């Protein structure tokens, strides 16, 4: 067996091993969110999760992923996470591990807080302070649930 073939095989095996080891982890892609007792937003939180937290994947049901963090298990919506490594099979090749590793590498880069700071210095007339105020409108979960109940609102399956 030539050296180049050996190297090739070793490379393939290393790739498979690394992919398999990383295959059941997701990374939180939002600033903060909750891991919940059930697969719905109005379920109580089991644990909080913040940007770039890595969570162990246990199972998925529709748009929800059951994860584990610090030994606590619960549900997180798929829009709150990026996949760290989803092994590429023929039908799922668009989800190669590279995408999200790239996203993680880009965290804090590009149009980031650092760029905003410079932009604010260059444009002091802009109303960033008001945007900060706007972001403070965060309605507690209990208030949204009370609003839903009082309004006799029952969540329905998403229409096609």
């Amino acid at each position, binding site marked *: 067996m030539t050296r180049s073939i050996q190297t090739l095989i070793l490379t393939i095996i290393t790739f498979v091993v690394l992919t398999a080891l990383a295959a059941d982890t997701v990374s939180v892609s939002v600033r903060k969110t909750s891991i919940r007792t059930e697969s719905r937003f109005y379920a109580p939180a089991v644990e909080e999760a913040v940007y770039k937290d890595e969570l162990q994947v246990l199972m998925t049901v529709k748009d929800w992923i059951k994860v584990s963090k610090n030994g606590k298990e619960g549900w997180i919506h798929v829009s709150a996470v990026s996949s760290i490594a989803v092994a590429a099979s023929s039908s799922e090749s668009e*989800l190669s591990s590279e995408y999200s590793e790239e996203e993680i590498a*880009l965290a804090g880069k*590009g149009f980031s807080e650092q760029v905003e700071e410079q932009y604010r210095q260059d444009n002091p007339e802009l109303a960033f302070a*008001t945007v900060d105020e*706007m972001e403070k*409108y965060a309605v507690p979960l209990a208030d*949204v649930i009370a609003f839903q109940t009082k309004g006799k609102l029952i969540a329905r399956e998403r*229409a096609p």
Partner: protein
Amino acid sequence: MKRTGVLTVSIILGIALLFPSQPKASPLYTINGAVSLKLNKDTFKNWKNISGKLRKGFSDLTAEEEYYIGRAVSAKILTRYKVYDDLERNTYINTLGQLLAWSSSRPEIFGGYHFTLIESDEINAFAAPGGFIFVTTGLYRSVENEEQLAAVLAHEIAHVNLQHGLRAIKKSNLTEAFSLIGTEVAKSYNKEQLLQLTGVFGKSVDDIVNQLVVSGYSRGQEYDADEEALRIAHGAGYNPDGLGEFLESLQQASEEGQPKGFTSTHPPAEKRLGKVDKFLKKVELTGSTETQRSSRFAGLKL
């Protein structure tokens, strides 16, 4: 000899991982030539793909970048409009908006959804990328019940979900930004790089503000946002007829020559109504308007 030993161990390890003797019992795993998670394309349908090393289009922007772009767009919009200082009504639209966002295709975004009333007689609403949504007091006054207000907020959430704001960034600005950002991992930029990147950030923000405030989205984008709004409002439990009712009152207001806004940046209400009716019939969405909601709104009417 040593190399062969390493190779043998590697092959055994590789095979063991490829074909685990005790596949995990969870429904996540399939043995399909490689161990794979059943987190398929559909699962991540709303998740941005950063394909390969080269970022090309608006969809390659990360959620974090979308958020910072949205903050700057909002900071510009808020130099043109004053926030309507009314904690009760702002809390109301934020609570309603949050509930609607849960039924949307992107319920969780980097910084969450935030809504605010802005002072203007125009009947208008704007959605900046990253979930910053502005509703004029003129619009708030023109809606007749909670179903209609839900329809309007759902329409704006739909623009965020569908990333219509980011699509307004000129290709040349995106290309310039991506080439400046590069792909190597660096903790921060030097001053020159930072100034260049901030320049192109500003140009991208202006592209979006211009589209939001001046030219408006394309008709196709507005129709898509209407369709998605129907799904969102219906999913949250609202009567999907709220959108049609609001468009009818908009049509009436426009005929009476009332202050414009929506009419300059949106397609004619009549055309939107036709499309909305067609969609509702096609997917057979129905619902009822509960009095509890109507009376709640009546108490908060402007």
